[in-house]
């Protein structure tokens, strides 16, 4: 048809073979050695920390560390995804990351070194380091040093509470009374933001469950049971979460009427403008609320879900934990950096600045009055890690909650959670 041979006697400008050779050479040009330590005997460390709000803060700390240790340069790695580094076989030398199910995978597979022999490890409160073990452990290792403990509860507008002379509720019935009072006064009791589903599970779900159930041991049993979870098993969502979800159902009747379409940003704006009395959020929302009204008087209390005030607990999470991968080629320098960050003055200043709590023994109390209400719970170790944080991402808990709030059928949701739990366990994907 249309194929014509190159005219004989005239070499083609580029023969197929030379074209291939050139392409291969071009590909080879892309190959560059990986960056190792610079010249002049300085070691370069990579420090992985991607919590947006404190990137600058840690940047300053790293410069300070470099001044104290002239032989070490530290590069601040703020990449979003953590997995690629491990896949490449080039994880950062020191990691500073949220202690959650994702980090648990790395702990379980034993790719993080043992830090138990560091001097600073001895200063960490055992009731806080026990929290990391609830997600995953590696036999004989302390893989993560908890660095920052964030505590969350019910953020409330002190001005509204004072005007209506409402007490801070200490029991479940008092809490319901307060909500009904507020409704009678024409004020939205609780501002909820269903559109961002994470706000539902970290607030409504976790708070309702936390003070009634020991999440750590509940989920340990759930993991042991795996595919056996169900109404007849020792533990199950359907059985153990029935009462907490009744609470959640009652709480959801006090939401703002348009909660279904509101987002997290809407919530911060509305609460900052004083449009609601209470808000189920952690300290991370406070800086956003301060943008709207920096002078709004705010306090935090732990949500009571039983009739005994002593049952009240705060929801905590280890917002940042320090770890060193086994693959790091600069173990000693990495440990120097961990020790530097764990120094009392540095760890305490960080947590005080960021509305969190230090994980070490004898740390001074949190001064900020917006979160000071949770200090007693931290002191007494009356805290729990949210139930929602134990549920793997493959179970869309937030979406189930959306549906349950709309239909009021929380029992069906719990049955679904059990079924999903069995399925995930069957796939062997629970972490």
């Amino acid at each position: 048809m249309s194929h014509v041979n190159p005219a004989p006697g005239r070499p083609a400008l580029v023969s197929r073979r030379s074209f291939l050779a050139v392409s291969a050479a071009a590909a080879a040009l892309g190959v560059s050695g990986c960056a190792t330590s610079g010249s002049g005997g300085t070691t370069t460390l990579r420090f992985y920390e991607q919590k947006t709000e404190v990137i600058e803060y840690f940047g300053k700390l790293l410069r300070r560390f470099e001044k104290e240790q002239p032989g070490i340069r530290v590069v601040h790695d703020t990449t979003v995804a953590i997995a690629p580094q491990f896949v490449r076989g080039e994880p950062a030398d020191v990691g500073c990351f949220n202690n959650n199910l994702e980090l648990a995978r790395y702990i379980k597979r034993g790719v993080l070194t043992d830090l138990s022999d560091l001097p600073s490890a001895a200063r960490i409160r055992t009731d806080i380091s026990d929290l990391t073990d609830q997600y995953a452990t590696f036999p004989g290792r302390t893989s993560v040093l908890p660095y920052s403990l964030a505590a969350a509860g019910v953020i409330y507008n002190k001005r509204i509470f004072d005007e209506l002379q409402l007490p801070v509720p200490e029991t479940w019935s008092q809490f319901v009374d307060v909500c009904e009072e507020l409704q009678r006064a024409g004020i939205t009791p609780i501002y909820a933001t269903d559109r961002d589903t994470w706000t539902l599970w970290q607030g409504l779900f976790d708070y309702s469950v936390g003070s009634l159930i020991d999440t750590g041991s509940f989920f340990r049993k759930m993991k042991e049971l795996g595919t056996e979870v169900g109404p007849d098993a020792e533990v199950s969502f359907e059985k153990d979460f029935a009462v907490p979800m009744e609470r959640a159902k009652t709480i959801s009747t006090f939401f703002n009427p348009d909660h279904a379409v509101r987002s997290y940003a809407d919530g911060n704006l509305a609460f900052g403008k004083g449009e609601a009395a209470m808000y189920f959020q952690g300290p991370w929302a406070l800086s956003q609320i301060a943008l709207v009204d920096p002078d709004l008087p705010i306090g935090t209390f732990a949500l009571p879900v039983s009739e005994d005030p002593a049952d009240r607990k705060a929801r905590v999470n280890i917002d940042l934990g320090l770890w060193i991968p086994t693959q790091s080629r600069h173990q000693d320098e990495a440990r120097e950096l961990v020790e530097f960050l764990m120094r009392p003055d540095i760890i305490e200043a960080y947590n005080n600045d960021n509305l969190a709590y230090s994980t070490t023994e004898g740390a001074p109390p949190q001064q900020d009055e917006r979160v000071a209400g949770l200090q007693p719970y931290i002191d007494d170790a009356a805290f729990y890690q949210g139930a929602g944080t134990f549920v793997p991402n493959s179970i869309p808990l937030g979406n189930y909650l959306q549906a349950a709030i709309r239909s009021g059928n929380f029992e069906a949701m719990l049955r679904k959670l059990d079924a999903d739990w069995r399925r995930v366990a069957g796939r062997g994907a629970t972490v």
Partner: protein
Amino acid sequence: MSDPAAPRGAARRRRLGGTNWPLTILLLLATLTVLAPLYVTLSMAFKTSEQAVDGEAFALPAPFNPQSFAVAWELTRFPVSFGISLAVAAITVVLTLFLSSLAAYAIVRNWDRRLFRWSLFYLLAALFLPFPVVALPQIQLTAMTGLDNPIGVGILHAMFQLSFSVLLYTAYLRSIPIELEESARIDGATTWQIFRRIILPLLGPMNATVGIFAFLASWNDFMLPSLITADPALQTLPVVQNIFQSQFGTNYNVAFASYLMAMAPTIIVYLIAQRWVISGITQGAVKH
């Protein structure tokens, strides 16, 4: 290129008898869907952080605050990230244009051979491969070959553009009359000369189309560079801009200032390049 579009347009309007109002109104509405968000982006970039979160997106900035641009410039290390983004996009566009036009030409002119026919089907099959599916092996492979850097990102972008671009080129090449090549062949031109002197110039409008698609895909991509590039200092703009947004808060005014600075070149590139997409360059190539 002389552009006789204006007198011709006037003639057409006279023939059609005035403006087509329903269509004009429809197009005006369509324009609004682009202009409204653009206006919000612009005004948001000049607001203060306090005003940015007040829930009044359409309000004019008061007080006027150009500070956001300085902050964004600083935080994203704008010149560096911008340069890397541009380099990645350039590698992508050049590689895509070069490889896909050559491949398409070979395929179309050898359509009667099974190998060439099936290689097109093979390329088209890649359209069904989304990047996330092959992400992890790609990360490992790029690390092994030392391509876990912007160069590798550019090469990968070009590979992912291949299927679509070859599809566009082959369709277009079929419409180029074979007589052009035959006459060149008689004058003693080699295949390579024919491609360079005749085919490549004729591919003008398609080059622009393919180039624009490749550029936009590369310029706006977030996922691939964020996973492939190992050195955080060598990240492209969209990845760096992620610092303005987290689950727990968004720094709207600074983010929008940064987005504006990142958007400007794409808009300029499009304004310049779309002329070639729309105008017919092949006119007068063949004498009738």
